[in-house]
């Protein structure tokens, strides 16, 4: 692997981390969808570069799939939901404490980094940014756990999936192509089902008392 590739991988990782922190500090949905699209575009660019360097047709297809599904199709679906249900345009609960979210995100990133160094790092080569997929995974989980808006939670899930793709690039360079491709379709399925459920949640409504009554214990 060339120095240029190593540098590009590290810089991409930095970009992914910065977009992750940006997403945590946002409460408006439109910029968040843009943020996850930018994060996915960075990933697609890295895959494209690796495809060019390795002259790998399979990596080029994976890059194209990331670009098509995570930069174009899924953000389009999410934006359509925001347009259809305007009250989703801002997460009200989060808007009251975005500073707290941002600080928490930084703390989680640091803890995840240390945890990675203590547990997983010895099993991997000492590359720059090697801890970043793990940090990104932790940020995605944090978003799932702390946000209440269903579309924001979908964005958290996508962030986790981006972490997996980045880990695949850093840890094994080329994960088997067929697996990558089918995983992308699976993720699209999860997003579509999430959107249907999200609509039902709004249409049927979520009366806290009934839900608490039936889903406790």
């Amino acid at each position, binding site marked *: 692997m060339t120095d240029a590739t190593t540098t590009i991988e590290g810089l991409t990782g930095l970009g992914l981390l910065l977009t992750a922190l940006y997403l945590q500090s946002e409460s408006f949905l439109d910029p968040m969808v843009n943020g996850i699209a930018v994060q996915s575009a960075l990933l697609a660019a890295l895959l494209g570069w690796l495809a060019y360097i390795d002259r790998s047709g399979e990596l080029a297809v994976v890059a194209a799939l990331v670009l098509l599904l995570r930069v174009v199709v899924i953000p389009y679906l999410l934006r359509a939901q925001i347009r259809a249900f305007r009250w989703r345009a801002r997460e009200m609960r989060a808007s009251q404490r975005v500073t707290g979210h941002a600080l928490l995100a930084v703390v989680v990133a640091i803890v995840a980094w240390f945890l990675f160094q203590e*547990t*997983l790092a*010895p*099993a*991997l080569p000492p590359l720059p940014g090697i801890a970043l*997929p793990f940090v990104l*995974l932790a940020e*995605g*989980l944090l978003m*799932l756990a702390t946000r209440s808006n*269903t579309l924001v*939670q979908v964005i958290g*899930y996508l962030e*986790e*999936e981006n*972490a*997996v793709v980045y*880990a*695949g690039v850093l*840890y*094994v360079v080329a*994960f*088997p192509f*067929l*697996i990558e491709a*089918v*995983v992308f379709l*699976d993720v699209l*399925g*999860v997003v*579509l*089902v*999430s959107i*249907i*459920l*999200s609509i*039902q*949640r709004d249409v*049927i*409504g*979520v*009366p806290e008392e*009934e*839900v608490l*009554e*039936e*889903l*406790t*214990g």
Partner: protein
Amino acid sequence: MIAATGPEAWTIVVLAAPVVGSLAALTVGDALSEPIARAASLLTWIAASVLLALGAHQVWGSYFGVDPVSDLFLFLVASVYAMSTWYSRGYLAHVTAPFLTPRRYYALLGAFAFAMLLALSVTDLGLMWVGVEATTVASALLIVLERRPASVEAAWRYTLIASAGLTIALFALIFLYRATGTLDAFALAARPVAASLPVAIAVALALVGYGTKIGLFPMHTWLPDAHSQAPSPVSAMFSGVLLPTALYAFLRIYAVVARPVPAALSDLVILFGLATAVGAALLLQRQRSYKRLFAYSSMEVMGIAVVGIGVGGIALYGALVLVVAHAFAKSAAFYCSGNVLRRTGTARIDEVRDLRRRLPWTAGTWVLSATAVTGAPPFGTFVGELLILSGALLAGADWVAAVLAGAVILAFLGVNGQIGGMVFGSEAKGTAREPDPVAELGIPWMGLAVCLAMGLVAVPFLAPAIRAAALALGGAL
């Protein structure tokens, strides 16, 4: 004739029947969707039974193959899929303003079964992951059938938590691929690798990742919600075969490690299993909903099975016996729960009383199902749990056996005490007597009969298949 047709053809039937059935159900309309789905599920069951009887062991192409372990789990999924499909008619009849039309319901039920069957008939661990993840996509909308706020919330939690957990399982595959250069489960099982750090990390991440779907503590939070809110035939598939399918995926990764498994790794597996069994046994003590009660009972059984896997040897054999017997018994318990729900209109334990008079046949079947799922003799679940406890004692893990025995007793008392209260408790005010749906008890009785037979005799084809699967996984008998 049957033997002359190779395992490949029968596996194609197993995979194609639910897909064709689903597509046909979608296109023909509501009236014909049910008979088509029934025929498809029956065909799937017949093909899976043939694979089990043949003891099929064959790989074809780069990604597909079956062996005694997959034969056993394919049979299990096909059996519960068929039972749930045939049971669904009566249940759907009472759902007012459902979220899914019958044709969509049966199509999704088939898709759900197909996703599990796919995960069980591939050799590639990556495609196996895809199959397990696809079960979430296919089944999430089934939970919303009754269109209640709580069911939508449960489906949402299920989708997010299960998918997030499975992302961690995908990380496990990346580590495994890095360490071994392949994701071929059959090739890796034939030549297990030493538990190097990357391999150990892969197993640990798989335990957490697939553990989310298995319902291991503390990643189990989606399980009681989804099981309790899903319609009963779907709850039966969740408890009976979805959890074992995720367990199968973990077993395949665990089988990659050369025997004897390092103590640190097997202890981790045992610890997760024990925490789950004990946690579930405690949580089920004071449940408000009988469906949640059975959901926690499933979690407890999965915990015990995971302990059996961690202990290995005869306990691993016991884990397979337990998983198979539990699938049949728990399906019966959920079908009976469906009957009770339809006749009483409530899933609350404190609102259901005097079932022995109101629904005597359903109540009797329900009591037997409850004792079966909690490992009472002479059911197959008892044999499985006894083998796991014996295995722990033989391995010198006395404390594991003691804690496990405590969890088993606690769960037995908790489940049967609460079911007993509903069946034998005095009649609640204002409740009317309804006709007992005796005709709909045939399916639960089939499940109970298999579970009972497993405890009394060596069931033809099934008993040798479980032994072969245990041997294939390195379990001693």
